[in-house]
């Protein structure tokens, strides 16, 4: 029982991480038809930003208490800035060439982690988390690491915020309409490009937050972290149906749980294998994803 509880909590934590990466990826693809290969790089940038701030380089930020919150906020801000920059400088000029947009993000996705490892080395750096978050708490006889709870809470907050934003605000309405039919929104005289930058900013912020909190989950940061998470995020996006936030949340939890349980009960690595095979199988059976949008 204790094992199952622990595995469930860890799986949920992992799922939360996937959701944070996949939500932005899903919105970007749904709205702009751009498969953002640089999304993993945004995650790495957020992780390094938080690590840099928490290591005492940013005045006021630190490894405990309010200082750590500030460090995470700093990492998220840096990631958001990078995402906006990416959209304005790389994606926007290629607006009429969708295939080149994907290629450009591939280039950025290769270059950004290389730049990170050029500056801070390619080895993993220990992530300085607050002592309060590195402990465990008992739940049904299992000792659950606190950081799993933090991840799940952050993912829930982002999920609720995104749903409120998409459902209740005018900008969210434009984004939703753009996902449904971009040409029609443009025809109605609304500048969708502003929504593009907005969606990139939101996606970048979520990914960077995932990076900053992923440092807690993994205990360290390394330049390739984002890229390895990106593949599972793709799995989540495709499974959840591209452009659907709720779909991404359901798929992220499913993928995280399957991965954890299969890795524990069969052999290490088989869980990862199961997830990618699951993706292939799902796409072949239901090419439109779980919630039925285009894939």
């Amino acid at each position, binding site marked *: 029982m204790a094992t199952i509880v622990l595995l469930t909590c860890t799986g949920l934590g992992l799922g939360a991480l996937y959701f944070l990466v996949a939500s932005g990826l899903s919105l970007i693809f749904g709205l702009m038809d751009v498969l953002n290969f640089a999304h993993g790089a945004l995650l790495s940038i957020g992780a390094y930003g938080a690590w840099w701030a928490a290591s005492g380089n940013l005045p006021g930020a630190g490894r405990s208490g309010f200082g750590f919150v500030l460090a995470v906020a700093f990492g998220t801000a840096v990631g958001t800035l990078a995402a906006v920059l990416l959209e304005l400088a790389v994606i926007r000029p290629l607006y009429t060439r969708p295939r080149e947009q994907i*290629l450009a993000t591939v280039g950025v996705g*290769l270059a950004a982690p290389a730049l990170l490892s050029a500056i801070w080395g390619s080895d993993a750096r220990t992530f300085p988390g607050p002592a309060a978050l590195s402990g465990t708490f008992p739940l049904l006889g299992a000792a659950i690491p606190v950081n799993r709870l933090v991840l799940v809470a952050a993912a829930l907050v982002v999920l609720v915020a995104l749903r409120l934003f998409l459902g209740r605000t005018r900008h969210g309405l434009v984004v939703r309409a753009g996902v449904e039919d971009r040409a029609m929104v443009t025809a109605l005289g609304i500048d969708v490009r502003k929504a593009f930058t907005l969606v990139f900013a939101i996606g970048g912020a979520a990914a960077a937050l995932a990076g900053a909190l992923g440092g807690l989950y993994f205990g360290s940061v390394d330049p390739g972290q984002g890229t390895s998470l990106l593949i599972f995020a793709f799995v989540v996006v495709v499974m959840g149906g591209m452009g659907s936030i709720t779909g991404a949340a359901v798929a992220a939890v499913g993928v995280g749980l399957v991965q954890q349980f299969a890795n524990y009960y069969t052999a*290490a690595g088989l869980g990862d294998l199961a997830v990618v095979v699951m993706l292939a199988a799902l796409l072949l059976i239901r090419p439109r994803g779980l919630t039925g949008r285009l894939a």
Partner: protein
Amino acid sequence: MSTTTPTAEPTRQEAPGRARPRSSPSWLRRAGRWWPGVLLLVLFVAPYSALQVPGVFDGPIGSPGTLQLLALCLVFGALATGYDLLVGRLGLLSFGHALYFAAGTYATNTITLEAGLPFVASALLGLLVGAVLAALLGSVSLRVTGIGFSMVTLAFAQAGSILVERDPGGITGGEEGRAAPAQQLPASLVGIQHTANLYWIALAYLVITLVAVHWAVRSPTGRVWEGIKENERRVEVLGLRPYGFKLLAFVLAGTLAALGGIVYLLLTGGATPQTTTSDFTLSLLVMVVLGGSGSRWGPLIGGVLYTWADHRLGDLAGSGSVAGLPAALRVPLSQPMFLLGAIFVVVVYVLPGGVVRLPGHLREARTSKRSPG
């Protein structure tokens, strides 16, 4: 090789009524038509050359180190050419091409090591494994289209990568990879003094790939591929099933990649898990786009340039001249991948169509500058 060359085309495209800037005598143009043959001959005799090319290569061209680099350039040039069959000729953005390359490498190496077969027999079996794998997974992946196809191929390749890292039964060597057994290979392919033989094998692989791709593209099947890339629905309306044609291209590209994997195994003396990763496929994509997707020589040029730059930039990063630079310059220069990624983004922007379109762009720029003034 075919009889028409791209060099003949620009003269045709020039604006009428304006004197050709370089009206070359007819014998020169006829000779120009044979440049692939001349280049092949030059590449063939390269191991006998003691020419020094300062800055481009470290040692003389005939030295083992330079030949090894040249052979790698040729292998990746050929690999990119095969990959472009999918990306450029059919518009199929496969993200799993590394799998078939790695299948050739790992299957051949493992069969040699575990079954103790002679190398040629295991190489043939390895090629067969690559072809069968491409046929199997291709027939499944091609059931979805667009981004779905990219994702399914990515998933299969990732599964392969995880399997290799997992090292089932100790047959793949996990993260370390596995060295090829020197005593089971033909003696003429082992050792630094025989690098020229490996170079010739790489050259032969390049020629096979170029001939196969050019022949396939010019065949009636190649016409259908062109049609599929332009408008798949229309091909269907004409009464042809695109699925079979796409599968044929997928298997051909996969088999060529597996062959490349076998050559790579000989060249580097082992199988490494880096060749199974999605980054490997992405670097192939970079090569294709860098050189010029869908063109005859573009992927080859891109593959050669990328491989050469990757190695030379790596050498440059390790050299003392970089260590003395200020941090703002030293840091980006120490990572070849950063420079390559940045160059790639720039090429995507300013040079749509890749390096092969550069002469055309330059000519256009010159004409447009001249005509108004």
